[in-house]
């Protein structure tokens, strides 16, 4: 795509770009790649230590995104959709590499009896920054079930509804897991004697 035209398309939303791609303007897909490479790379960084795996995964995600782009409803938000593809690819790779059976939430006890009051609460920006500051050092120790939700919530700034769309779990369960994830973070930090 020519650089002059690129500037004109910078103001378009993700959904508008996807609509153009769906109408046949395939070269506009590189705008999506440009916008999401850093974000998805950061997302995969938290799960995978192998850089080669990350790069292969990134390519696979964009390829799958392109192949299935006509399945995206442009009335919805695009970012949960592409993160859903990224999540599935990451899970498949982790399952392949893991020596023991891998499961996120086949029969989570909270799935049927999700906490009715685990609604989204607004954390202040400073509170989130404080958690993020310590989170980098302890992320590896957090249970995989909470890790992904914590990454999506604290690093990618997704709302409960967006996280629900990425992971295909009820909104109330997202709240429950974030609360439990925070408790686990607090426990680890106390063990490491952080203030």
């Amino acid at each position, binding site marked *: 795509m020519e650089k002059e035209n690129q500037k004109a398309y910078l103001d378009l939303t993700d959904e508008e770009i996807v609509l153009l*791609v*769906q109408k046949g303007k*395939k*070269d506009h*897909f*590189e705008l999506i*790649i*440009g916008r999401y*490479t*850093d974000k998805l*790379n950061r997302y995969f960084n938290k799960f995978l230590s192998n850089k080669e795996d990350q*790069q292969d995964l*990134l*390519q696979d995600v*964009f*390829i799958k995104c*392109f*192949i*299935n*782009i*006509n*399945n995206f409803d442009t009335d919805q938000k695009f970012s949960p959709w592409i993160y859903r593809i990224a999540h599935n690819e990451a899970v498949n790779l982790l399952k392949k590499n893991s020596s023991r059976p891998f499961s996120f939430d086949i029969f989570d006890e909270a*799935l*049927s009896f*999700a906490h009715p009051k685990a609604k989204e609460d607004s954390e202040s920006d400073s509170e989130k920054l404080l958690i993020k500051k310590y989170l980098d050092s302890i992320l590896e120790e957090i249970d995989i079930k909470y890790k992904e939700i914590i990454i999506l919530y604290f690093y990618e700034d997704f709302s409960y*509804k967006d996280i*629900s*769309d990425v992971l*295909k*779990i*009820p*909104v*109330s*369960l997202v709240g429950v897991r974030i609360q439990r994830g925070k408790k686990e973070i607090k426990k680890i930090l106390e063990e490491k004697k952080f203030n």
Partner: protein
Amino acid sequence: MENLKDDLIKKINEKIKDNKIKMKPKFYFVLQGFLLMSFILIMFLASLYIGNFILLIFHEHQESINFLRIDSFDFNNFLEFLKIIPGLLILLLFVFIFSLYRLIKDHAFVYRKNILYIILFLFLILTIVVINIHIFLDRNFDRIRFGEKGELPVVSYLHKYYRGNRLKPSGFKDLPNKSKVFRNREVLNN
């Protein structure tokens, strides 16, 4: 990071130009959606049929075990009850219900509010109960015996296996005028 971005754009653009990756057409997803809806409907109807069939088996055996009569409930009656339980059918019902759950769980209107699973399950139970009450009150027992005459291969096999000599049970059509469910049982027992 810019190198990674440019590298990715170049690789993917090359694959698009060489037609190594192609967008799936919209029709593909419409057909996929239609097939999924069809499977959901089939699973729902299959669950409904099996649920009703299980109740038919219990209904036909009630005169021999008197299970619902409190005054004669004892260990022997309970053993008889265990014998007539169609275990495989109940297992099949659970398989159908679980399949239904797996088919619908990825849809936004279901996973966002998981209470919809419970509502769907309750709707299935309610439909089975309403059908059975309607049949017993209406006395149109031919509806219970759907498939008994061999018009459908698998269904008629179920009738032969589970109902055996109870095919065309006596007394159903000989009952007096419309009566309630519990009165029916008394007439059959006498």
